[in-house]
């Protein structure tokens, strides 16, 4: 790793993008052109923007699913480009939790089993989770309780849960094993308006108490009030393209 002076500067950051450009193969224009974007460790940032502004592409880059055409992306001080694709898979599993708009759960696993998936794929997350309680089941139970999911739901098939309940299970899964960063991509869009705020507060509370950085992406700027910092895609992205 080439981590001289500039590397150390980024040690304190959860995410750092420098001169990142991304262009889909065959496309005539850049989808993303971000001269600079960063997030401190433990910071909670709201990213807003209409659909087609490159949000999904940005998340794909930070998650290491996509590689930038040029520029540098550091997550937790690690240059994703220097990890191979297998390395990026491992890094993602260890350090990033995800919550998507819907269909977050594996239908044939129980609530607790869904929460524990990351611990089975990442020994690193598992070790950290085991330090949070006596055993993994207990840690999952603790998280579910803190997210207001009653015990009677835990043994039910996940498809019988309401969408709000499913999103909270997804939250617990993203949080288990103390990842440093949670990426939430429109996690409230499928919820009723009155449930959105409640969900958001639960998520923010847990991120704060775990010291986890939260990158929250939504088109609904009403939710931004709860965040200390809000970023508009069009302010950081110099390329203005329509993209799905």
């Amino acid at each position, binding site marked *: 790793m080439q981590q001289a002076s500039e590397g150390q500067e980024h040690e304190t950051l959860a995410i750092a993008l420098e001169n990142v450009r991304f262009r889909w193969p065959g496309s005539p224009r850049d989808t993303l052109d971000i001269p600079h974007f960063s997030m401190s460790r433990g910071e909670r940032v709201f990213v807003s923007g209409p659909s087609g502004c490159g949000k999904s592409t940005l998340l794909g880059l930070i998650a290491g699913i996509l590689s930038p055409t040029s520029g540098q992306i550091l997550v937790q001080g690690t240059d994703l480009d220097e990890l191979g694709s297998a390395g990026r898979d491992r890094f993602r599993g260890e350090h990033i939790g995800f919550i998507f708009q819907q269909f977050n*759960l594996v239908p044939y696993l129980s609530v607790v089993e869904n929460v524990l998936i990351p611990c089975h794929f*990442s020994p690193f997350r598992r070790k950290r989770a085991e330090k949070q309680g006596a055993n993994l089941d207990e840690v999952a139970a603790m998280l579910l309780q803190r997210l207001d999911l009653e015990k009677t739901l835990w043994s039910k098939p996940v498809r019988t849960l309401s969408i709000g309940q499913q999103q909270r299970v997804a939250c617990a899964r993203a949080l288990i094993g103390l990842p440093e960063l949670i990426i939430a991509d429109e996690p409230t869009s499928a919820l009723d308006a009155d449930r959105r705020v409640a969900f958001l507060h639960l998520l923010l509370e847990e991120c704060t108490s775990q010291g986890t950085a939260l990158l929250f992406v939504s088109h609904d700027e009403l939710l931004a009030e709860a965040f200390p910092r809000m970023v508009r895609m069009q302010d950081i992205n110099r390329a203005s393209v329509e993209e799905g």
Partner: protein
Amino acid sequence: MGHFTYLWQLACKSAWNRRGTLLLIVLSIALSTTLLLGIEKLRAQVRDNFVQAVSGLDLVIGARGSSLQLVLYAVFHLGSATNNMGYDTAKALAQKPQVAFTIPISLGDTHRDFPVVATNAVFYEKFRYRHGLALRMAEGHAPEALFDVVLGAEVARSLGYQLGSKIVLSHGQSGNAQAEHSANPFTVSGLLAPTGTPVDRSLYISLEAMEAIHLNWQNGLHQDQPLVAENLTKLEPRAITALLVGLKKRSQVFALQREINEGPGEPLTAVLPGVAMNQIWEMVSVGEQALLVISALVTVVGLAGLAAAILAGLGERRRELAVLRSAGASPVDILWLMAMEGLLLVLSGTGLGLVVIYALLALCAPFLAEHYGVFLALTAPSSGEWLLLLAICLSGFCASLLPACKAYRMSLSDGLTVSV
């Protein structure tokens, strides 16, 4: 390997979640397995039945000629008559010190296209088939009166004869009405139990009866007449078709064979029946291999169905796989998950097929033995059958790698979310 245990659990739970669709795949693999194993077992059985049409016999002796033709005619009663051998020669051979017993047989007549075999009492006592089984009378007894006849199981079954039925033999191979021995009808005295050998398709009379019905046929003219008392003394045969020989010590067989084949006196051919019958089997086993090829093709179709069904199911699993990816599974994990599902399906399919084939065997074996003389033993799979099972499992696993690779590529391009 805790990781693989977890993947295996995931694969099992996921498969159970889609058990409705997957059951069909398992059934088709089970069917292929049943068919392949069933044909393999039947094939081994038919071969055994064929090669073991006689057992415990060391030599088949007949007039000099082709050894295969001699065995075909003497054992399977197929083909045309070779020359006869003298009955005196046969009696002399029976006196040799190495010889334990001899069974003379005389062929030539038929009844409704079933061959008629003239022999003596030694046949009922000493004839063996299938690794040493003795003949058994289902009903009645060996011929006692001159015109008694004993029927093989299939003859009795297909022609509907019972004890006491009167039957007329025909001269030669065809059912020519001009050449019937209608003056001397035979009475059914015994019915043999099924053996699954040419015995089932034959009628057995005494050598003397054979002589008796041909007394007036010397000139080739049809002079079918009832036997008269003064002729009773002339009934010792002058010639027979072949002599089946059992030795006291098997080790002496080659010496005796050489002695007969090369010795002075009447020109004879002595054949080791086992060797000849294996040679004949090699000639007719082309059909057997075609059968195996067909069942192999059925298996290929079953496995192609496996791959196709898993591929078709990939669409609905896209989200599930993406969720696993976002929760830390690598594309290689997805590849493993799919491969394990294939293995699971193939293993349960072949397992079920194995259970079905043995259940079928247990159910049908008594029926087949009773009616067709086909003995299917409930033995553990032979090494050849294990190889077949292994081949099914391996090729099924390979077939499931195709959708696994597709899922791998899909999970690479889908990333963590599926836009549906």
